[in-house]
């Protein structure tokens, strides 16, 4: 009876596919309240790709799991609104979510080995959801599964259908995971670091596959990654996360050509580029992300920021609109503006640089660190 609630509802005409408002996920630990996701708001339209970028512990994985309803059962507090095709799904029970997982939203995880069942043939793992959600009989499900395997680029799909995950390479396993996720034709695909465990050549293959499938099916996709390079050419919009918050959000073009948030700039600068001559000194970000239990009073990035001023330590910057309507950022002294340039000059003149690596007790967020 809980099945296909959303399909029966038909969704609200004109409502965006996914609308997240002020989503907060806090873990209650013996050390205190870990604010893994702290007030995230965004909208995703059909057929678009949103890239979510951040370092480990920035809350990007917890965010995607919060949207999917895949959080631990205890010691978690999730507040805020998640509207899927206009329907509020944040209060759905696990049983109700079962109608959402598969035909509406599907997820691809980082490690293809641990997200497949090692003692179940891969054919069965694909047909399972087809038979449950789409009421297919065994033969129909098998035919569709074989064609899915073929469409994700697995050679000899008939033979692979009967094999176990250990008989496949890492890249092939990730293709199987993608086939499982695509089986019921989801409208939203969450890909949580889908290529981090793979080699760079296989990564290119998998990203191309996701791209092609997304266009073919007019699916929306949330691509979570720590690598700005992965999302640069493939996402329409990019959200940069830091310490549980979105610190900058823009279309990919705007973000790279006119970034405003010092963190985005620092993140991009710290990537070794192929066109650099060898032994080029890399611009690293000093220090580490702040504690999510006792967040600093002011800007979360202040302690590591080149542009830091008194105001940044005292006041929390809000997400403000940039020059273009789709551009938002959280900074008092944005990169590329006069205020930012003056702040940087003042800091350089006064020799004020962010404190470098020091040793302190690290508290890691449960489930937050990958």
């Amino acid at each position, binding site marked *: 009876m809980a099945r296909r609630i959303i399909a029966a509802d038909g969704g609200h005409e004109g409502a965006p596919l996914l609308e997240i408002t002020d989503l907060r996920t806090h873990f209650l630990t013996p050390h205190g309240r870990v604010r893994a996701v702290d007030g995230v708001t965004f909208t995703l339209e059909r057929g678009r790709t949103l890239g979510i970028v951040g*370092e480990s512990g920035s809350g990007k994985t917890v965010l995607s799991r919060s949207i999917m309803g895949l959080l631990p059962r205890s010691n978690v507090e999730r507040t805020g609104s998640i509207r899927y095709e206009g329907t509020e799904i944040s209060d759905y029970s696990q049983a109700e979510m079962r109608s959402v997982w598969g035909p509406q939203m599907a997820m691809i995880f980082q490690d293809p080995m641990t997200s497949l069942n090692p003692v179940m043939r891969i054919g069965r793992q694909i047909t399972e959801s087809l038979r449950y959600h789409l009421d297919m009989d065994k033969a129909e499900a098998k035919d569709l599964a074989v064609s899915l395997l073929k469409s994700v680029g697995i050679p000899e799909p008939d033979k692979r259908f009967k094999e176990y995950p250990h008989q496949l390479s890492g890249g092939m396993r990730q293709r199987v995971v993608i086939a499982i996720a695509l089986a019921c034709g989801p409208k939203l695909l969450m890909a949580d670091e889908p290529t981090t465990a793979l080699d760079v050549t296989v990564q290119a293959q998998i*990203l191309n596959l996701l791209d092609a499938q997304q266009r073919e099916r007019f699916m929306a996709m949330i691509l979570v990654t720590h*690598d700005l390079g992965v999302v640069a050419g493939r996402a329409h919009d990019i959200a940069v996360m830091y310490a549980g918050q979105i610190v900058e959000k823009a279309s990919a073009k705007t973000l790279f050509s006119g970034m405003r948030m010092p963190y985005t700039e620092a993140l991009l600068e710290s990537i070794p580029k192929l066109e650099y001559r*060898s032994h080029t000194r890399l611009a690293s970000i000093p220090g580490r992300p702040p504690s999510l239990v006792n967040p600093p009073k002011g800007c979360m990035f202040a302690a590591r920021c080149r542009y830091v001023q008194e105001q940044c330590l005292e006041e929390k910057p809000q997400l403000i609109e940039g020059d273009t309507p789709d551009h938002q950022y959280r900074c008092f002294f944005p990169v590329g503006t006069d205020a930012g340039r003056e702040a940087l000059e003042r800091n350089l003149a006064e020799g004020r640089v962010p404190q470098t690596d020091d*040793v302190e007790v690290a508290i890691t967020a449960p489930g937050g660190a990958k």
Partner: protein
Amino acid sequence: MAGSGTAHLRPVDEVVLRVEDLTVEFPASGGRKVHAVTGVSFDVAKGETLGIVGESGCGKSTTGKAIMRLVPITSGTVTFNGNEISSLSGNKLRELRQELQMIFQDPVSSINPRRTIGDVVTEPLDIWNRTDGAEELVDRVLSDVGLDPQVARPKRRHEFSGGQCQRICIARSLVLDPEVIICDEPVSALDVSVQAQILNLLEDMKERYGLTLVFIAHDLAVVKNVSDRVAVMYLGKICEIASPDDLYYRPAHPYSAALLTAIPLPDPDVVPNTGDLAGDLPSPMAPPSGCRFRTRCARATDRCAAEEPIVRQVGDDHFVACHFPLVGEVAPPSTSAVRVATSS
């Protein structure tokens, strides 16, 4: 090459470490063998950083471990400062490891969780009874790698982040003042911002301690950044050896070119490449005949299956093992793969 040959080796007296025709095989079920490393030769000059790059399963880590003698060598020789070390055993081998140190991929699991950081970094000195001034030495090394010795010493590994653990591992490898450090994927478990810190630190330490480094990684951009010379490996063989800038601007081996185009660039105006390199790495239990890369190579011909390419020089300090390299005297049979070489 995925081929063999020694044309790229320099005279013995100019190099610290020389690996010649190294082969490492592991037994597998049914009397078969895993050909992890086959006929690999390279050398490292004093103060140089040799980068070894390739996909998982190409034998780059096995090569590093074989030099350290952490895996048995099937055949071939390793020469360190003119002395043959591939046949050493027992105490001789242990003594050698004072000069040859290694940093591993996962910094957290390579530190004993029950011991304090002070103990972890002091232990190499204890083993060799170098107790005179040990405490000051440990303090100096810890502060060199960017940790406050007074704060770090009494703590254990769970109190540090991944980047800090890698700093501790670097300190531990430096404390014996080794000549060569083999870094096996030292930054692939770290975030990009921390990665930059550790790469900068390795460059500083190389300078300060006069180190020679063998830097093993799968990320060509990282390898290019730290290396003086880069060796590209594929399925247990060396494809190409060149200076990093040369390799980037003029890749001669089709595999190096494919690796370069596969790297996602942080630039939305660059259209992501739509797949030069199809398929997976073949099984190392039954590697292809001739050139091992031929099964995935767009330029492969019958000659590549029949005859193994031998390393030859195609430029100044630029060596390749390919019958149809992208640069050099042999005209390419097709132009499909050439766009890579010109896209820079």
